[in-house]
């Protein structure tokens, strides 16, 4: 299975994960600082800043785009419960 490296800059952990995994699942497993509320892409709690590898995440859905807009998030911000890992990325909690 294809693998990618996800680095959580707040806790300094790099995790090797199967491509397609959602960022929140990884954060939860390794105790990084990304936290979640609804896990349905609605509440915005899991907002994260993607420092590297912006193009290595799945495209945001219409719903995620809307939540990002309502939260006035900048262009390198994503919801960890929605974004799936496609390649190497570095993230931190927003």
């Amino acid at each position, binding site marked *: 299975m294809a693998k990618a*490296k996800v*680095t959580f800059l*707040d*806790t*300094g*952990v*790099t*995790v*090797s*994960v*199967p491509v397609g*995994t959602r960022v929140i699942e*990884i954060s*939860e*497993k*390794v*105790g*990084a*600082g990304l*936290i979640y509320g609804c896990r349905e892409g*609605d509440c*915005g*709690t899991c907002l994260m800043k993607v420092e590297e590898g912006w193009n290595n995440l799945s495209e945001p859905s219409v719903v995620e785009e*809307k939540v990002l*807009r*309502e*939260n*006035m998030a900048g262009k390198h911000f994503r919801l960890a419960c929605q974004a799936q890992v496609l390649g190497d990325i570095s993230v931190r*909690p927003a």
Partner: protein
Amino acid sequence: MIKSTYAATQPGAVAISDRVHWIGALDPSLRTFDIILKTANGTTYNSYLVRGSEGMAVIDTVKEVFSETFFKRLESVADYSEIKYIVLNHLEPDHTGALPELMRRAPQARLFISQRAQSMLKALLKHDQFEFTPVMTGDTVSLGDRTLRFLNTPYLHWPDTQCTYLEEEKVLFSGDVFGCHYCDARLFNDRVGDFRFSFEYYYAHIMRPFREYVLKALKLIEPLPLSMIAPSHGPVLRDRPDQYLLHYRRLATSALDSEIGQEKSLLIFYISSYGNTARMAEAVYEAVGEIEGVRASLYDLEGGEVAPFVDLIEEADGLLFGTPTINGDAVKPVWDLLSSLAVVQTRGKLAGAFGSYGWSGEAVRMVEERLRGLKMTVPVEGLRIKLIPTDEELDACRAFGTSIGRALIGDVENRIVEMVQR
């Protein structure tokens, strides 16, 4: 229009300035609000009507069961056809209960809400067949010779909250901010009974968890000239409104400056039946004390009460909980503290758990789950030791303390892990 002191006991609207009327409802028999709040003399749902040369605006509505009172007051000073705008500062049902009926009676009115209120509005009204305009700080709408300006003040106490400022009259319609559950038909702060306790109590339960947002909102509000603060619950603050801004600033800032200063504060709470978890706590405490830039404090939960510990937690950067396992669970004093943190912000703090156990040791994992549930980061896996810690096990406690301390000062060692199910 009624001029008597107990004006709000009459069915009409109450003038609070030349162009603003109170059209809210009194709820004197309410004793519990939103499950979490008590009130000894009820509350009010304040709604306001603003008259401009080119139409009127309704600011917030009331709880649904008080709709009839609200519409009667409104009708005493306005025709529905005159209502140009409806502004919702906060979508909680006690302020939006009468909204669907108001929209039906005044279909021409444009609805103004905050950006974050959009998805909530749909969930409240349960259909998509309505229009609204989301607004941000600085947006204005005109009523001819009167102007409403919006201030985006999120998380006071929901994501959607905003304030609306009537520029020409210098009135701030603040929503729940500066409000309290205090029902008094005399309406104005210089006429009602002693509502100081209710004001403080409301802040402590509703606004305190969001104090960083209170400070942000104050930055927007403080520069405004104010003749009056018109909140959505409790007295209208027309006498010395600035004092209430000052008081909010005081409440949102620590009473006593911490002596800890720039160092990171780590609180270690523990409780122990045979002294084993206590010995673990002491070893952790000792190791954290060696880390420069971290100031640790050690507390035995048996010797303290919940409320002051909650105050300490509000200010801390990191928290550790030492708990034994008794009958497969963490012990009650630990849960008592961990179930009392809704009134403070815990998001983003570092946290961890440890404890001695006899045979199964579930408590540490359960406490870790709770800490994550409180949106804290748990950077180091909890430490469980069977019964009496050996010297090697006390070394493990020290290593645990060192890792937590280093994580607190951001000294994180980059480690690489494979994702496996655990």
